[in-house]
């Protein structure tokens, strides 16, 4: 730290990086690790996770294949109904999908409004025009993505993450992949807290404003330290696994049991999917 930087008055502020890391940490904890909704009593919470995973994949295929807006809208409405009967707060569920939609899918869909050839829907200044075909293309994209995201969010909100991972076995996802995903999930939390602690520790010892170069140097040093810590941690975790009999090919086990309700749900969802695919193939874009 330079002498001048030490004497500069300190303004109460939070650095962009600290703020971002803190937000990422908070959001991840809320979105992945908080299992409040998954512990509620509701329809989807009482269904076998394997049924939910299979149903979600089937419905995602139906959404992707559908050439009918009405079918996609129908499936979206189905997600709302399922959310409602599964104690998922509606405003939270809808906002979670639609707040991010303009930033991600909207940016991709926007050019389609203008560049897709077709009959004019709206004439704009400077010779620009929105075509009917372009509007339909953008609408299809937005609805497909929002319905698909809603289905995925519904699964994650109503199922503990651990059960989601185990249920992937029903799709014949290899055990080693499930194990790695599970460990990633578990250690992201630890590393996020380590990063937060590192930045708080730095903050408690910085007595002035740092120059951009000094900030960059400290961030690079922190990144290096974190990498070193995570490497050490991964080595120790591997030893702990070896110590308990791990030989490079993991064995996992689920304790799921199919009940009458689960079979009924599975059959119902597959029927809905079949009908949606058939109806969707009748429509035209």
């Amino acid at each position, binding site marked *: 730290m330079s002498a001048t930087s030490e004497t500069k008055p300190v303004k109460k502020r939070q650095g962009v990086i600290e703020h971002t890391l803190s937000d990422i940490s908070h959001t991840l904890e809320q979105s992945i690790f908080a299992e409040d909704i998954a512990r509620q009593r509701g329809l989807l919470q009482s269904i076998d996770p394997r049924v939910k995973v299979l149903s979600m994949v089937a419905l995602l295929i139906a959404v992707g294949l559908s050439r009918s807006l009405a079918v996609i809208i129908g499936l979206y409405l189905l997600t709302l109904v399922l959310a409602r009967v599964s104690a998922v707060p509606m405003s939270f569920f809808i906002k979670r999908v639609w707040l991010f939609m303009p930033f991600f899918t909207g940016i991709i869909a926007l050019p389609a409004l203008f560049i897709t050839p077709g009959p004019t829907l709206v004439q704009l200044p400077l010779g620009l025009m929105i075509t009917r075909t372009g509007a339909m293309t953008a609408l299809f994209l937005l609805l497909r993505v929002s319905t698909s995201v809603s289905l995925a969010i519904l699964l994650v909100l109503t199922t503990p993450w651990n059960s989601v991972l185990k249920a992937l076995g029903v799709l014949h996802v290899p055990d080693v992949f499930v194990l790695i995903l599970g460990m990633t999930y*578990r250690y992201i939390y630890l590393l996020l807290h380590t990063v937060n602690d590192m930045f708080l520790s730095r903050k408690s010892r910085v007595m002035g404003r740092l120059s951009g170069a000094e900030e960059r140097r400290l961030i690079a040093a922190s990144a290096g330290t974190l990498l070193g810590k995570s490497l050490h941690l991964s080595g120790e975790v591997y030893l702990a696994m070896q*110590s308990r*009999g791990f030989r490079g090919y993991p064995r996992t*086990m689920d304790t799921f049991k199919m009940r009458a309700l689960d079979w009924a749900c599975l059959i119902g969802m597959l029927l809905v999917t079949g009908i949606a695919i058939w109806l969707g193939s009748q429509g035209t874009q």
Partner: protein
Amino acid sequence: MSNEAVFDFQGVSFAYDGKVKALEDASLCVEAGERVAILGSNGSGKSTLLKLMDGLYFPNAGTACAFGAALTEQAFQDDAFNFSFRQRVGLVFQDSEVQLFSPSVWDEVAFAPLQLGLRREDVVKRVDDALVSLRIEKLRDRAPHRLSGGEKKRVALASVLSFNPEVWLMDEPTAGLDPRSQSWLVDFLIEQGRAGKTVVTATHDLNIVDSIADRVYVINEDHHIVAQGTPGEVLSNHELLIACNLMHEHLHRHDDRSEEHSHPHIHLPSHEHLTA
């Protein structure tokens, strides 16, 4: 107590990456059913010794034997040897974060029985028994990272208890635990000893040594085993404990002696320290 040697280490040395010395010329013998404490300050090589005993590291020099067989990388290539050894020896790591790598407590406790190829019903029974035994049934679906330090330690113990090893290797078991969890853990180790298990505990907590060990090895800061004896013999050798950085001397008061004085001591509630 049987006289069969569980561990027989002769002149064992180990260095990380072949450069950073962690253990020098260590010789020790642990018999079946014995309770042994490895005393040493931070960085003396206690954890490394336990990892050598668990066949996770292998000596750079000297010989390390367990149950009469040499612990070598080649030996562990053999599935039968690996299976037999892993089933008989369990290591509880100092840092529970390292040991608890599964997404739920149930999965964590089931990990070893599953890797050891037990049948589904046996796995379920062993996990349930371990959870009940450590009174953590209510935590079964919880994520390990959401638990308190004491709960994490119980889960780490359950993850080893589920395969019921003959030998427990404990690395700094009381580190970072509150007093209630510490005393519970000491009771757990005493129970294991009474059940005829071999218990090797690495620690620098002199307060628990008398309760958890019948024999003590002391490692100094140069990574050598410099003494062995009964807890009474070792704990009364203040010169040795000060030399190995396990005891210190500074001004303090006793409950029953109000004037300031100084002598070598370990930290007990009846000591009031006057200088840091």
